[in-house]
């Protein structure tokens, strides 16, 4: 009897025990941790739930990790930026679990003063794949989930995650499965309507540059970079200047890479770029090319202030004989000959006034570029000609001057200015000063030998050096006037004024009128942006010029092709001279039509950050710019500013490895 009772107790006990085991330990269906909170930090709660599915092939259990954040609390993405730490699960004393694969929804950017982080607010659901070890049926998750969350303070919270999963006892929960599928659809994928057209790394300034283009254009995209490469695990990518720049379909973003110890080599490494342009979100894996700016930057770094100043003087002087001066030739010649009967003293003052006009204009341009640089705008030489308002103003002024020269009417200065000018011959001096200003403004869109080097140095230098170099450029360009001012007797070499001047005036007028018409034609690309894109693929022979693209250059060169790059602008007369004088003449014309040669053009007539970046990559700030790439010169061969047939043919030959 007693034994029977004991056996009864034992049976009852064993039933209880098995009930307890099944309800507490080896949960059936789709186990969940339920909402977990921390007594230290009530602004966040987390939940881990498996969907109840199990893939025996991959041995994975789909699961959802949901984080809820109150008010302004944020948590972080896998690459949180400068500070912040991604949420992570430490498997700790889990058993039968190999690893957990995370999927990261597209983050948003948040700023703490100037520090940018990538993360999530309110609620975020991470789809997880729990990988169960081989030959394991009962997996025991006994892990610690560490979540960082910040407002203007930061907290690191540990949540114990405990789940016991028997893969044979699972039953899929349709609600959880749907939630998982939905969460997976939020994970950014490479979407075909956008692509990474350029990705490179410059070891000199540790910067990564990306260009992404999207067929329907960008709105206000946020760009994030991370790498799955284990060696790049702790590299932080910081968005340069805290913004990406958008130009229609093209998006440009630069990131500065840093590492707490030592930055590993990034060239040829795989990185992933995630874009969030609500509602568009996508991620693209791309390999980092080597940035080609290295060599030129080194040359610039080793340049002394004296070298730059000398280059500025020489460049400014050469500017006087560049084709770009064509539009102001009339004004210049007139200023030289019309005054040869004045007294030496007068001539000295007049030429000094013109020189002052030239110099002060250079200093003003330098100051404006410096200010723009400080405000974070990509500055370049001649960029004013990319502005339709600037061109319109110039065109109208030239038109007024031309009409004035024809004698149709006299420009009337405002009365106060007139009175001021009448005193002590200021009238003519003011005129000469403005001639200098005008000549400079009109003649400076193109770059010139030495000028490019001096400008590149100046734009990368602190403000006082920038102004000094521009002052040097002004002195250089004003040298002809300054030398006549210093030796007034040299004016005797100029033609003597006489009755013939009467006939010359309308000729100058016609020249100025032509300049005005030319300026007005420059406005056409601004009227419709689409037309400027079509001109970039303008047809000069049977094969069109391709649009400038770093990616295409690299691809073509690896295929053994030669790429000829021509960066040009409608307002750059030196570019036109190169085109008419060399590119469209034999033997260059035929050489460029060779089947293994790709002609690529960058049209800089209107502002284009991609082309600016291309020029910048070679330490250039202006056009014309030509470069030839090929198997023999994958980094490219730079051509002189004023092209010659020989230089072009020689470069193509070298690039082809002949």
């Amino acid at each position: 009897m007693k034994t029977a009772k004991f056996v009864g107790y034992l049976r009852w006990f064993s039933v209880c025990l098995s009930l307890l085991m099944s309800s507490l330990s080896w949960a059936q269906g789709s186990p969940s941790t339920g909402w977990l909170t921390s007594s230290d930090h009530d602004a966040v709660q987390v939940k881990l739930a498996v969907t109840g599915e199990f893939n025996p092939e991959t041995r994975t259990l789909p699961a959802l990790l949901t984080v809820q954040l109150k008010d302004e609390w944020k948590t972080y993405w896998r690459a949180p930026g400068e500070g912040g730490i991604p949420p992570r699960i430490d498997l700790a004393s889990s058993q039968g679990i190999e690893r957990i694969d995370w999927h990261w929804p597209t983050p948003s950017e948040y700023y703490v003063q100037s520090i940018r982080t990538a993360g999530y607010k309110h609620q975020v659901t991470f789809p997880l794949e729990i990988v169960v070890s081989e030959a394991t049926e009962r997996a025991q998750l006994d892990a610690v989930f560490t979540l960082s969350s910040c407002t203007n303070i930061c907290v690191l919270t540990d949540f114990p995650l405990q789940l016991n999963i028997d893969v044979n006892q699972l039953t899929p929960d349709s609600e959880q499965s749907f939630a998982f599928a939905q969460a997976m659809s939020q994970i950014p994928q490479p979407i075909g309507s956008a692509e990474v057209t350029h990705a490179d790394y410059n070891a000199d300034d540790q910067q990564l540059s990306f260009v992404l283009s999207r067929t329907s254009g960008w709105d206000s995209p946020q760009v994030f970079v991370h790498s799955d490469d284990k060696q790049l695990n702790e590299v932080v990518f910081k968005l340069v200047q805290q913004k990406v720049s958008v130009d229609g379909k093209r998006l440009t973003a630069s990131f500065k890479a840093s590492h707490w110890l030592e930055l590993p080599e990034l060239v040829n490494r795989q990185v992933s770029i995630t874009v969030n342009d609500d509602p568009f979100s996508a991620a693209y894996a791309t390999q980092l090319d080597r940035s080609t700016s290295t060599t030129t930057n080194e040359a610039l770094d080793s340049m002394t202030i004296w070298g730059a100043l000398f280059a500025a003087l020489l460049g400014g002087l050469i500017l006087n004989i560049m084709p770009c001066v064509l539009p102001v030739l009339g004004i210049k010649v007139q200023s030289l000959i019309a005054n040869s009967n004045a007294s030496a003293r007068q001539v000295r003052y007049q030429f000094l006034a013109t020189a002052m006009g030239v110099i002060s204009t250079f200093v003003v341009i330098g100051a404006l570029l410096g200010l723009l640089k400080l405000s974070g705008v990509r500055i370049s030489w001649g960029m004013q000609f990319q502005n339709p308002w600037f061109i319109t103003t110039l065109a109208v002024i030239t038109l007024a001057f031309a009409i004035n020269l024809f004698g149709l009417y006299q420009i009337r200065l405002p009365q106060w200015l007139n009175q001021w000018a009448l005193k002590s011959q200021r009238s003519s001096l003011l005129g000469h000063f403005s001639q200098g200003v005008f000549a400079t403004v009109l003649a400076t869109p193109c770059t010139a030998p030495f000028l490019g080097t001096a400008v590149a140095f100046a734009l990368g230098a602190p403000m006082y050096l920038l102004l000094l170099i521009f002052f040097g450029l002004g002195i250089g360009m004003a040298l002809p006037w300054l030398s006549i001012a210093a030796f007034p007797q040299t004016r005797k070499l100029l033609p003597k004024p006489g009755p013939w001047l009467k006939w010359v005036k309308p000729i100058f007028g016609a020249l100025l009128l032509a300049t005005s018409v030319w300026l007005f034609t420059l406005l056409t690309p601004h009227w419709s942006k689409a037309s400027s894109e079509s001109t970039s693929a303008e047809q000069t022979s049977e094969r069109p010029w391709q649009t400038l693209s770093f990616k295409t250059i690299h691809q073509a060169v690896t295929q053994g092709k030669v790429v000829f790059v021509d960066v040009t602008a409608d307002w750059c007369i030196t570019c036109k001279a190169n085109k008419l004088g060399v590119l469209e003449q034999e033997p260059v014309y035929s050489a460029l039509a060779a089947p293994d040669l790709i002609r690529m053009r960058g049209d800089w007539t209107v502002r284009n950050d991609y082309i600016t970046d291309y020029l910048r990559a070679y330490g250039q700030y202006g056009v014309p710019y030509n470069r030839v790439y090929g198997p023999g010169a994958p980094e490219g061969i730079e051509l002189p500013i004023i092209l010659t047939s020989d230089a072009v043919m020689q470069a193509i030959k070298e690039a082809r490895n002949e």
Partner: protein
Amino acid sequence: MNKWGLRFIKLLGYLVVAGAIAFGVDLYRNNDVPTTVPSELTLTSLAGEPLSLAKMSEATPVVLYFWATWCPVCPTVSPTVDWLSDDYTVISVALRSGHDKKVSAYLESNQLDFTTINDDRGQISRRFNMGVTPTILIINNHKVTSATSGFTSPPGILARLWFSKLQN
């Protein structure tokens, strides 16, 4: 009284009210922080030197700064604390920020010179009931006289240091 005098008094009034609010917020935010520092507590800095907070606070108020490498707000406060460390006794605690080498490298690359204790596993911070970064405690003569989390301006910390001296 003239116009400027009135303005001055108004300004003073604002400052007093703002100070009182800040002080109130401090108290509210950190009601879990212990009021005294145990005198037997000795910590070791990254450089290996033993530090007794209680003992140090007998001579002059000690600024105890809790921060972390994973805290995006901290870089806005750390330079201020670093600047203070030239004239005041500053001890910082790096909360769960990784191993010594990493914390040292972080301090060096951000040019932070303050004395730092690496609280890799968060044990020291737990003694202070401290899980929030950035937080600045001011310890005067064994007593925690002020605790403030989040952004703190240089005048804010200086005011708290003066206040701490007044209390003594």
